[in-house]
């Protein structure tokens, strides 16, 4: 009964950002001896069968045996995360994946339980999208820790890009996303991302109890 009608679940992980504030490619950051992106793929794989990692053409990424790599079209490079989500959703729709977790390659605190939770909400609450929002004003939304129904999200994303919209939040507004306050997530800490060397060092220390190995 618990597994009946479970839809095919996938994930889109965005890895194509420029990592300009970090100063080095975020996908390759060491995370306990392996690249951060590899860690994330393994973690998401616990809950999702089809994983698409979206990169930029020519961008070196770690070998990812459990994921499919897809690149953003060159003509849309640098146009932001909505493009990446579109690329990823397209790839998932192609494989008849019904629902998907949307994440990023810098989710240092991501947990498989969070993926289960947002994807589970989608199913049980009968909505097309689920997105965590901060409890405190201005109630910032976290599109890259969310879940969507793939065909619905793909249709809206296509339309938004045609209209020149770049902000992922609009996708969730159009889908009438269920907003889950961060305090009600299984672990609100998962929303932490890491954009700067300082944030990375702090996250590494918190997780592994030591400083990250220094890189060239």
């Amino acid at each position, binding site marked *: *009964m618990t597994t009946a009608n479970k839809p095919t679940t996938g994930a889109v992980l965005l890895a194509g950002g420029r990592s300009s504030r970090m100063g080095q490619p975020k996908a390759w950051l060491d995370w306990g001896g392996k690249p951060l992106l590899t860690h994330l793929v393994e973690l998401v794989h616990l809950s999702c069968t089809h994983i698409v990692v979206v990169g930029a053409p020519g961008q070196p990424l770690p070998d990812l045996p459990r994921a499919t790599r897809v690149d953003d079209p060159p003509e849309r490079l640098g146009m932001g995360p909505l493009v990446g989500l579109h690329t990823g959703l397209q790839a998932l729709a192609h494989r008849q994946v019904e629902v998907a977790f949307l994440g990023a390659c810098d989710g240092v605190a991501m947990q498989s339980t969070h993926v*289960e939770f947002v994807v589970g909400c989608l199913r*049980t*609450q*009968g909505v097309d999208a689920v997105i965590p929002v901060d409890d405190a004003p201005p109630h910032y939304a976290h599109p890259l820790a969310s879940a969507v129904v793939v065909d619905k999200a793909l249709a809206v994303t296509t339309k938004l890009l045609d209209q020149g919209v770049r902000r992922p939040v609009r996708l969730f507004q159009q889908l009438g996303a269920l*907003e889950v306050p961060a*305090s009600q997530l299984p672990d609100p800490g998962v929303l932490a991302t890491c954009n700067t060397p300082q944030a990375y060092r702090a996250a590494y220390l918190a997780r592994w109890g030591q400083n990250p190995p220094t890189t060239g």
Partner: protein
Amino acid sequence: MTGGHNQSQFLQVIDPELAHSRWRAALGPVSPRTEIVELANLRGRVLARSVAAPGDVPGFDRSNVDGYAVCARDTYGASEGQPVRLRLAGEVIATGVAPQTEVVPGLAVTIATGGMVPRGADAVLMLEDCDLETRDTLIVRRPAVPGAMISFAGSDITRGEVVLRRGSLLSSRETGVLAAIGLGQTLVYRRPRVGVLSTGDELVAPGKPLPLAHVHDCNQTVLADACEELGCEVVRLGIAPDRDAALANTLQAAIASCDLVLLSGGTSKGAGDRSYRAVAELPGPTADIGPIIVHGVALKPGKPVCLAATRTAERIVPIVVLPGFPTSALFTFHEFCAPLLRQLGGRPRKNSAQTSISADLAAGVSSVRGRRQYMLVQLMQPTSGERPVAQAISKGSGSISAFCRADGFVAVPQQQERIEASEAVEVVPMGAATHPADLVIAGSHCTGLELIAEYLHAQGLRIQLVALGSQGGLRNAASELCDVAPIHLYDRQTCTYNRTFVPDNCRLIRGYQRMQGLLFRRDDPRFSAPMGEPTGWVTDNLLADDVVMVNRNRGSGTRVLVDELLAPLAPKRPRGYHHEARSHSGVATCVAQGRADWGIAIATVAEQAGLGFVPIRSESYDFVIPQARFSRAAVQQFLQALTAPEVVEGLTQAGFTPDKGVLS
């Protein structure tokens, strides 16, 4: 109980975190509801919005003393030698009235504590610092600075100041503030409504007589009260009727009116099944998902917990079937239900890291790999060092006393199979007990010991009694894991009690003599006939098929005595030899209920149970105390208690012969 149903649904056991995620996803975001509540009913509620003061507190410049309102400048230079004289106005400013007089230079007005400082005055002189010369002349002997003895308007709370934030739990302190700013009512979160239902054919409501083979239903009380402690309104639904249809009706009614429905299975096989089946019949949260979201979680205790959700016309209602054993029920309640109830009631998440206590584990423990194990512990003051010592309480999940006695618990991670002695552990405190007991007594249990403990408790000592048997007590004393180890062990070689067993690092303190003997039902002619010598009944008759004994647990002093008495019959053993009661009164109950015909225990319990008693041997019940802990204040208090007249008298009345704490 329906025989055909096995426990085949059991169980697809998953990680607690995953269980949490799946269940909470099925429930969707939880939004606490709010209501306006009158001030008189606000205590214990949680504020749903921050409260700002509508006006100043105090609302006017207020005198802090009985005295005279003056212009401070008029008093400058005043002293005993050179007092200043002021004219005294006729008005006396009492509390609760607006003053009429304006204070001008040279004038003073009498004012009461809490009175409103009049226009023109900027200080109040204390009555004691002035004298009346005539009815209208005041002699001032001390100067005052501007502002002296005045609380200015808004000096306590300024208008617009946020006095309490959203999410504050209102105790008398907070309600006092709300009253002070004049709020007659305010917006708080609604108390979550929880229905609590027990199932199990063996359950009897507390307060009703207990037929044989039944137990009192304690889960209902434990769970309902745990909910109330979290600020919930509880609907106690009692014990579910035997018929499945009636159970379904009760469940439906609860779902219609409650925010959470808790069922707890009895301990009988099938009770949990029945609850599970009743829940499984309900509609799930959506059309294509069943109501059972999780059945089986990698927790010990608590594996069979069932997390469910059903949909009514307007909302999704969570349902949890908790295991029947009280300890399992409570742990799973705190794992899954308490966080939900906190959110429903607008309370903040509990952060166990903020409250946990670091301790050293007393003795190594093994855990089950693959399940997160909760281990109940008692805390003890360390012999040396600063961190308290945590001692695991080894009782099954059926034990309610373990939960009551524990100071907290340690969560052993799933991957960990063992924690070694003196390894650091984090103890999550439970209940009010947040500091270690003053005195830990571990070893043989005796009703006489309870008398001593009761006396010390009345003196304000926090005592922990752990029944480990004489030999367990000796081991703990040797490792300095207790302050006092009561023992009664007979050494056949020296024909003495206890002395020869004392570890090198311990001392022996004489306790009291107690009479061990044979217990039997008074109407059982086989034992009540005269038997001559006290041990004359140890004959082949005891080996007869229709004579059943109850033994004591290995490690207890009484077991040593039993084995010694039965030695002449070896290698044959009476029927029931392997049935081990864990206490003197356990033996008495067993005999009284006819499950056994005889056993060995002390005279006191025989008398309490109305049993016949043949004295066998007076034995010494003494106390082993680790040298390293001897000088502790609590240990010294214990020693003094042994000679206290109340204790000596109490022991004597109960049939013991006190040795008055002589050092052996």
